[in-house]
């Protein structure tokens, strides 16, 4: 018997640009919205719910709704960094289930490459940020914060740079087939560990790319999905959680996926072993390794062994991941990864991934996002998706 779902993903779209020198950020939001609505077979007149992150231009949802001419009865701008868009999928599902909207549009866009923004420094949220004086003087950057997590994981579990490198190797094997991917060269473990050290123990090839672009999702109520046909994908479960430094009780070996994963799996009535494919936000190789452990794909501390020897490569290993090349090789719009994670999971469930990476009979998939910095404060969100007949 087919599983019931409170909401379905009817349309997805990934912007093909990786450097948007001639487009504005609001324009990118609108272009991805149009792309996802066309993919769904809907128009903007059908949209009555809108979701965006906390860094969308202007007054966020208010400015973007005006720019796109949306007529809304529900809006949400929950901001959990790069995990926001999977949070939005869950919030859209809840809003639809509560009858607050029928067609929810989620958009992400940004131009860090065109604007020349370095992803190295900590983001300044103003003089009121309570942790400011206790962190900024020390030069926190995205790279060295994730590097400290990698160092501690290595210390406690014996994880090696070569094991982390396998994550990039797998992503590069997939990216070679993606004509839009920024980095399409297949790399080896040696290539990764011999690339320049950025923030030790992380090398340049342990880090994701910086790209412009964006993506959008259309989440609809079950009755609309039924009318739109088989390309719609079920939202079977979603979970989200937040982790921080907990008053100075710092443990960098795990992420909030340890909580968001079980919530999503329980809601779906499924387990990690049921997943045929996983999109895992890959801001850095260590992000993927800790997330796989936290989601229960292997025991805590065994992530290094789990990712080695091509286990994440489609057609080779047990858990095909990020078959579009992920943030490590393909696309990382506005330095935020979870939108593209959902998009590739939907492609897999529809059988629309590139034939070289398509998982056979892919009926159940997971997408996971991590936002903020895993060594400071971070949000995690997990969604379990199912093919229409799953």
């Amino acid at each position, binding site marked *: 018997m087919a599983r019931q779902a409170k909401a379905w993903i009817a349309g997805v779209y990934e912007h093909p640009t990786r450097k948007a020198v001639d487009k504005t950020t609001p324009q990118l939001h609108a272009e991805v919205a149009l792309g996802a609505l066309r993919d769904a077979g809907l128009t903007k007149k059908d949209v009555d719910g809108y979701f965006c992150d906390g860094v969308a231009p202007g007054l966020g949802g208010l400015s973007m709704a005006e720019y796109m001419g949306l007529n809304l009865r529900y809006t949400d701008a929950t901001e959990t960094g790069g995990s926001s868009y999977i949070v939005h999928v869950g919030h859209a599902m809840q809003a639809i289930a509560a009858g607050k909207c029928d067609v929810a549009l989620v958009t992400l866009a940004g131009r860090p490459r065109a604007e020349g923004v370095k992803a190295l420094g900590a983001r300044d949220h103003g*003089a009121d940020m*309570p*942790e*400011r*004086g*206790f*962190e*900024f*003087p*020390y*030069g*926190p*950057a995205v*790279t*060295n*914060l994730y*590097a*400290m*997590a990698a*160092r*501690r994981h290595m*210390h406690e579990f014996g994880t090696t740079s070569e094991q982390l490198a396998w994550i990039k190797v797998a992503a590069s094997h997939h990216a070679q087939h993606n004509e839009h991917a920024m980095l399409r060269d297949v790399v080896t473990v040696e290539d990764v560990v011999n690339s*320049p*050290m*950025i*923030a*030790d*123990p*992380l090398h340049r090839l342990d880090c994701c790319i910086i790209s412009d672009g964006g993506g959008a999702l259309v989440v609809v109520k079950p009755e609309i999905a039924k009318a739109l046909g088989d390309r719609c994908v079920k939202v079977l479960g979603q979970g989200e959680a937040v982790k921080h*430094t*907990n*008053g*100075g*009780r*710092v443990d*960098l070996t795990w992420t909030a996926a340890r909580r968001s994963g079980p919530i999503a799996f329980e809601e779906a009535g499924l387990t990690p072993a049921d997943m045929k494919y996983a999109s895992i936000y890959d801001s850095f190789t260590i992000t993927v390794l800790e997330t796989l452990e936290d989601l229960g794909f292997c025991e805590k501390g065994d992530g290094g062994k789990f990712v080695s020897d091509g286990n994440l490569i489609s057609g080779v290993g047990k858990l095909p991941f990020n078959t579009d090349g992920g943030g490590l090789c393909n696309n990382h719009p506005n330095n935020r990864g979870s939108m593209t994670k959902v998009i590739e999971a939907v492609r897999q469930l529809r059988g629309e991934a590139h034939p070289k990476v398509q998982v056979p009979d892919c009926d159940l998939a997971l997408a996971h996002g991590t936002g903020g910095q895993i*060594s400071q404060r971070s949000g995690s969100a997990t969604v379990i998706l199912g093919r229409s007949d799953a």
Partner: protein
Amino acid sequence: MILEMREHTDPVINPETEAYWKAANDGKLLVKYCMECKEPHFYPRALCPFCMSERTEWRETAGRGRIYSFSVMRRADPVYAIAYVTLEEGVTMLTNIVDADPETLRVGQEVEVAFGAAANGQAIPLFRPPDATR
């Protein structure tokens, strides 16, 4: 190569944290303790993050701890090491390691507080190996 002092970003000082920064200028590292649940916390807050009690007080630490984790920014100029240091009092704080060879840093290493300076002269707590010589 020895990790040097560098000029730090000025911290924003407000009524909630000014005692911390004044103590730093006197060469002392403070943490906040909760008088209800008896737990120390970091970074310092007016209300305890564990039980939300408003009865918190400043206490001076011994200024000693161990490196919980660290990363050396190889491409920065000057090269610097960011670290989490777990104090003897039980809290872990973000900091920089100075007066040390980056090749010799290790998790678990003993360190003691030292003080660098922000652009405006405010003292900033840092850590260094206890046997380091200036």
